[in-house]
């Protein structure tokens, strides 16, 4: 481990309209190390990273690479200085091949023909990626796509590799594989900057750790000198919430029953196979699984957005299978969608109109066939108050709100009108810790009153903390049930990847 500094940022500040994303950020990354940058959502990690990669330019402060001060006007400059970035949301064109994706923007390096193909094969073989240059990216799985992203930066001769939340879509076992790759890269002399909020992983693989909170760097340490709890407290600024256990509110009354649900896509592939589940009044059923294993399809089928090939969905004894989405909502199902901007909000409409969305047939938004403006507005004020939605008025366009506040609005709306069943897909995604806890409280309160909840989440702490029961979904099938009181993340991770055939039930 040499003491040379690969990247250094001094007193970097970056402002956007209405928010200071980075304030006096100081970070020093030693060459040939794996350096972790931790912080929760909204801490400013993304912005700093974009500055390091040249996507944004800082307003104040300096950047230096290998001791030389630099100023990046665009990613091209950063790439020229040997910095490569692997984004959390993959930047890949589905309709193009692996080679076309890799070569794009750097066609001068090896052309776009045979030489390029050969070079790609060479890198892929050297690190064991197993990628075929002519494969259409559309056909690749999540892990392979990530490797394409890493290959992209290596192809450009990156010495410094920035990884943004690389494990967000991977399970513990795949994460280990990734970390092996990273250790190999480090051994070849590369420097890795690794952004994450998953502290277990950070402690496992990093040489150095920098913590950010609310736009600024608040601490620097190494795994040897710290614990997970200390890191978490640095990130949050105070004590962490721990999973609550209280006396059970689960009753015997069955609220939702799903029987033999099977779903195929247009090409005949099975997306869901023989799903059976039951949720009782006062019960939270958590579904754990790697993204893309059928959770979204399950939710959409229950909501009536997709038509199953076989099976039934029964709500309080009534078979809903032939009902439309509207009818299901009218029966009292609340739906917090996974992607609030695409499925939960009308971005160009004011908050009070968004209150009506999804509830266009019920009080207080509606009177007969007419919209009840006064009613909707009054209720919007109530939600803004009860769920602490930060907004100057209910006439503000929902696009103007931050992600967390948008989510709070959606949650507040869906929990209004006394739903009998709440389908919550990643309900606290993008929400800061304080609001997250508040939402959990609202859900617990409602559960006490008899609400049944189907909870989909990638946050294992959330699943364990809120659920009365956990089921794991894998490739469209439910493969095992767990008791949140006794399960560990390792057990879950194992079941989520199919590793534990003998998973406890």
């Amino acid at each position, binding site marked *: 481990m040499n003491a040379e500094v690969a990247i250094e940022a001094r007193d970097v500040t970056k402002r956007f309209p209405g928010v200071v994303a980075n304030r006096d950020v100081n970070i020093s990354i030693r060459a040939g190390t794996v350096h972790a940058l931790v912080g929760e959502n909204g801490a400013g990690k*993304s912005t700093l*990273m*974009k500055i390091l*990669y040249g*996507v*944004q330019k800082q307003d104040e402060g300096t950047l230096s690479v290998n001791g030389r001060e630099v100023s990046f006007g*665009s*990613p*091209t400059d950063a*790439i020229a200085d040997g910095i490569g*970035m692997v*984004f959390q*949301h993959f*930047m*890949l*064109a*589905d*309709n*193009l091949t692996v080679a*076309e*994706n890799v*070569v*794009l*923007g*750097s*066609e*001068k390096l090896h052309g*776009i023909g045979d030489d390029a193909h050969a070079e790609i094969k060479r890198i892929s073989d050297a690190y064991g990626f197993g990628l075929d240059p002519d494969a259409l990216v559309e056909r690749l799985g999540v892990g392979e796509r990530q490797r394409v992203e890493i290959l*992209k930066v290596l192809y450009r001769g990156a010495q410094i590799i920035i990884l*943004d939340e690389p494990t967000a879509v991977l399970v513990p076992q795949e994460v280990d594989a990734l970390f092996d790759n990273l250790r190999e890269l480090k051994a070849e002399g590369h420097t890795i900057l690794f952004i994450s909020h998953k502290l277990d992983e950070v402690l496992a693989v990093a040489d150095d750790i920098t913590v950010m909170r609310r736009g600024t760097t608040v601490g620097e340490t190494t795994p040897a000198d710290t614990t997970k709890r200390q890191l978490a407290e640095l990130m949050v600024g105070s004590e962490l919430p721990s999973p609550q256990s209280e006396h059970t509110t689960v009753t015997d009354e069955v609220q939702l029953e799903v029987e033999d649900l099977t779903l195929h896509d247009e090409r005949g592939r099975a997306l869901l196979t023989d799903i059976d589940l039951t949720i009782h009044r006062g019960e939270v059923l958590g579904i754990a699984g790697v993204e893309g294993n059928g959770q979204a399809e399950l939710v959409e089928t229950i909501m009536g957005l997709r038509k199953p090939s076989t099976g039934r969905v029964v709500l309080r004894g009534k078979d809903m299978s032939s009902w439309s989405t509207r009818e299901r909502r009218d029966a009292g199902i609340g739906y917090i969608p996974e992607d609030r901007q695409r499925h939960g909000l009308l971005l160009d409409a004011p908050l009070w109109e968004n209150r009506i969305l999804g509830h266009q047939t019920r009080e207080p938004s509606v009177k007969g066939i007419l919209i009840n403006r006064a009613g909707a507005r009054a209720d919007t004020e109530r939600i803004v108050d009860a769920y602490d939605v930060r907004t100057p008025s209910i006439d503000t366009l929902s696009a103007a709100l931050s992600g967390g506040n948008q989510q709070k609005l959606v949650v507040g709306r869906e929990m209004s009108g006394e739903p009998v069943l709440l389908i919550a897909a990643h309900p606290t995604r993008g929400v800061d810790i304080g609001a997250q806890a508040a939402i959990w409280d609202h859900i617990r309160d409602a559960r006490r009153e008899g609400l049944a909840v189907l909870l989909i989440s990638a946050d294992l702490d959330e699943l364990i903390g809120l659920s009365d029961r956990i089921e794991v979904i894998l490739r469209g099938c439910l493969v095992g049930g767990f008791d949140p009181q006794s399960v560990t993340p390792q057990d879950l991770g194992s079941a989520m990847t199919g590793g534990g055939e003998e998973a406890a039930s």
Partner: protein
Amino acid sequence: MSLRTPERSGQGSAARALNILPLWLLIVVGALLAVSAVRVLTGTPEMNSRGTLSAAILATCPILMAAIGGLWSERAGVVNIGLEGQMILGTWGAAYFTYYYGPWVGILGAALLGAVGGALHALATVTFGVDHIVSGVAVNIIGLGGAKFLASAYFENLDGGGANQLTGLDSPTRFTVPGVSDVASDIAARGWFVISDLAAVVAALTTNMSLMTIAVFALVAATAWVLWKTPFGLRLRSCGENPQAAESLGVNVIRYKWIAVVTSGAFAGIGGGFLALVASSGFVNGQTGGRGFIGLAAMIFGNWRPGGILTGAFLFGYTDSLPLVQNSEQTVHALLLLLAAGLIGLALWNLRKGLKVSAAVLGAAGAGFLLLFLVTDRVPRDFTSMTPYVATLLVLAFASQRLRMPAADGQIYRKGSAG
């Protein structure tokens, strides 16, 4: 592991050969046979005589240029329905510049005027982020009004000109390949099954062929090469597939979109120029008649690929040239039979693939056209002029679902949205 049984290996060499040949070749051969058969059965030699095919090629080129123009734009992610307006501007540009400087400068002038139309569209959509369709509509209005106004301002006092037209212009040279042309024409006129049909194609390609037509096809080939075989093309296409990814790799997405849309307008303009100089005798108000839109349809039909676009443009161009063909009412009538045969063929194929609903709909449509063919003996002249539009609708209705457009087509792009 069971060995292949004798019955199975006796599948028939014909059937096995069918599995080896590429699909497109099979379709071409099948189409040739079908067309020839229908021609002989119904006794309508004008269906694919040399004259008809020549006219069809002339009608195809403007549509083809519009379609390729659309391709350039949409491959970069910008929907351009302003092709019609850009084409109209091209007709004016061609007329004006040809009058003073000759036909080849005329075509350049057409491209220039079309590019101006493209630039307006680019300004609105790429720079200001306006909805692509809305901007296209506005460009069409401006193009239409612009050409009319400029025509009445500049053409009224010219030779062969008037407030609404400018005719009698020089056209690009035409040539005829000696020997080949005569022999082919001769064979074509004999009416022999399949051989005459092939000969007619050869004859049409070698008789009175405009150099401009060659240029058009060269442009298509050039487009295919540039977009798929060069770094420039890769970058341009990436802007239409995932502009954020392209931006993250240092591609100047805004610049490529601009280039693509302006080029798109230029191509539409060239299409207009061809229309005025080669396919017609000059500029006439309203001569584009919706061909810009038909070009768009050809692009969709061609699944955003040059090969498919060629096919689609020819299909629409052929139907576009029908009203001018001698004996058009009988010919279109005969085409009903061909259409019915085609639909029923498609229906059977769909049935084989297990798509029952599709097969039923196609079969019903095929039966309907067959009935129409049997019950009537001619299609009224007014209806023949409708054929390209009806053809467009039918094709889109039956083929829309299997198409794949560039992933980010129509998306409003803003810089800095990467990451």
